[in-house]
């Protein structure tokens, strides 16, 4: 079964290509609003609660949601819902618990990046946090971007029957063009537009499937007949349940998500973003689960799914159900999920290079003019993108190896440091640096040596160990600079 065969239909192809080029148009439209470095990285801190909610959610959800969660639901049944509960709950709380305080303090310190914030908040004059943090962030995020480009290029290559290198160039060039034009604003407004595309993929699609199946009771009866475990939400081990819920521990440490909170015009409005973002997260998460369940009922035998791969169920089902136009839009939805994550991460990589390394360390004593900074930001986006493209093509094994640790590594390195910096006045520089290193190393070592024997998701020990290390340094070390409520 060739799930992309339908894309040869001119109408399907036209709609699909439109979804690819629409972001460039948005980049052109917001180009003139990007006049300085703060505009390029933070959109001038003037975003609405609605844009922030949709953008924070879209940036955090990659192809893992559309393809991975639907594949899990296909295999595991209803119990796959637990894979989305942890991060949705964590993100709901962090909109207000982290977002409000971080937004106010980052404006007070004139921080543009998360590392800017740590340095000012903890008065790190020797710039140790910035240096160590930039290395950890750079490695994980570049690998993350490369993996997203690779995922996008692979799908494009199969869909349009193009060589992988050509697909990679197309997928990444489209992202780089609008990012260079409009920076953060282009990224955020594209997230909003992509959210609309994803409504078709993860709302209209499962609703249509449910109607086709004769409604929810009929769907559940069909699944129960296949296996009673399919309709039992607790048909998973305790370790797997904790691992699923533990995914949420990674959310506060994702720099490309957390930076969104720093850019809302009015921090008091973040509580509205929490409701809008949670609603959107729930709709996307359960939409993906429903697609997997409907897919299992439609294709009970995994051999009927392309490559016998459950993660292809979204594609298989959409090819079976829809007309070419909707099908083109649904395939566009997968790219929307992939690229909305890649562009946000790429922007953080370039802010790390331009702001954290070049401007604040290398050119510390020789400030750059605003026009120079803006030009540099654009070129570094291009440069970081090219590095990611090369890695995605030449070193994809290394990239995928690094990405295995990326969510957990970032979560355990930055999430703990951020939470304690915001809420515990004894948090100090040595503790944050030790916590970042502990979080990163524990994630990697646990995954390599202990995950198989214990069955515990590496982020859980890494997060709590990192938290303990920062707390220990806080208790033993010098008292840090007390936070001031902004």
């Amino acid at each position, binding site marked *: 079964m060739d799930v992309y065969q339908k894309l040869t239909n001119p109408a399907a192809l036209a709609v699909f290509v439109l979804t690819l080029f629409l972001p460039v148009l948005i980049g052109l439209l917001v180009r003139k609003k990007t006049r300085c470095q703060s505009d390029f990285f933070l959109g001038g801190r003037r975003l609405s609660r609605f844009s922030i909610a949709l953008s924070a959610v879209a940036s955090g959800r990659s192809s893992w949601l559309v393809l991975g969660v639907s594949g899990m639901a296909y295999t595991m049944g*209803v*119990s796959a*819902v637990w894979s989305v*509960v942890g991060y*949705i*709950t964590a993100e*709901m*709380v962090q*909109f*207000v*618990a*982290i*977002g*409000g*305080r971080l937004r106010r303090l980052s404006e007070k310190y004139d921080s543009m990046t998360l590392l800017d914030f740590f340095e000012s908040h903890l008065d790190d004059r020797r710039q140790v946090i910035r240096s160590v943090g930039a290395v950890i962030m750079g490695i994980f995020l570049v690998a993350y971007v490369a993996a997203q480009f690779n995922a996008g290029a692979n799908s494009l290559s199969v869909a349009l029957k193009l060589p992988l290198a050509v697909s990679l160039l197309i997928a990444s060039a489209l992202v780089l063009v609008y990012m260079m034009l409009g920076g953060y604003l282009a990224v955020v407004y594209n997230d909003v537009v992509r959210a609309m595309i994803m409504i078709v993929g993860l709302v209209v699609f499962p609703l249509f499937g449910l109607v086709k199946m004769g409604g*929810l009771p009929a769907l*559940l009866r069909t699944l*129960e007949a296949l296996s009673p475990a399919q*309709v*039992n*939400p*607790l048909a998973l081990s305790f370790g797997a349940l904790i691992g699923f819920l533990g995914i949420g521990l990674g959310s506060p440490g994702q720099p490309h998500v957390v930076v969104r909170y720093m850019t809302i015009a009015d*921090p*008091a409005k*973040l*509580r*509205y973003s*929490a*409701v809008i973002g*949670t*609603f959107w997260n*729930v709709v996307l*998460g*359960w939409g993906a*689960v*429903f697609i997997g369940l409907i897919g299992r009922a439609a294709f009970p035998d995994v051999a009927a799914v392309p490559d016998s791969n459950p993660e292809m169920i979204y594609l298989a089902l959409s090819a079976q159900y829809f007309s070419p136009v909707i099908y083109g839009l649904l395939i566009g939805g997968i790219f929307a999920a992939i690229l909305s994550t890649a562009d946000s991460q790429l922007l953080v990589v370039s802010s790390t290079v331009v702001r954290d390394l070049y401007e604040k360390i290398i050119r510390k004593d020789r400030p750059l003019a605003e026009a120079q900074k803006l030009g540099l930001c654009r070129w570094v986006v291009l440069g970081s993108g090219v590095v990611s493209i090369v890695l995605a093509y030449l070193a994809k094994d290394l990239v995928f190896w690094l990405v295995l640790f990326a969510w957990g590594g970032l979560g355990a390195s930055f999430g703990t440091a951020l939470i304690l910096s915001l809420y515990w006045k004894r948090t100090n520089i040595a503790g944050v640096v030790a916590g970042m290193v502990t979080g990163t190393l524990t994630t990697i070592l646990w995954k390599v040596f202990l995950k198989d024997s214990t069955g515990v998701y590496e982020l859980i020990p890494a997060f709590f160990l990192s938290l303990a290390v920062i707390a220990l340094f806080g208790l033993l070390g010098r008292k840090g600079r007390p936070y001031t*409520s902004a």
Partner: protein
Amino acid sequence: MTGAYLALIALPLAIVGLSLVVFRLARRPGRGE
């Protein structure tokens, strides 16, 4: 089957409901704002 209904219908509604609780709590000074 009841479990499936709870997981597929009640659980998402409960999470959205919880976000409204967070919304209310965040109005109080010192709760993240």
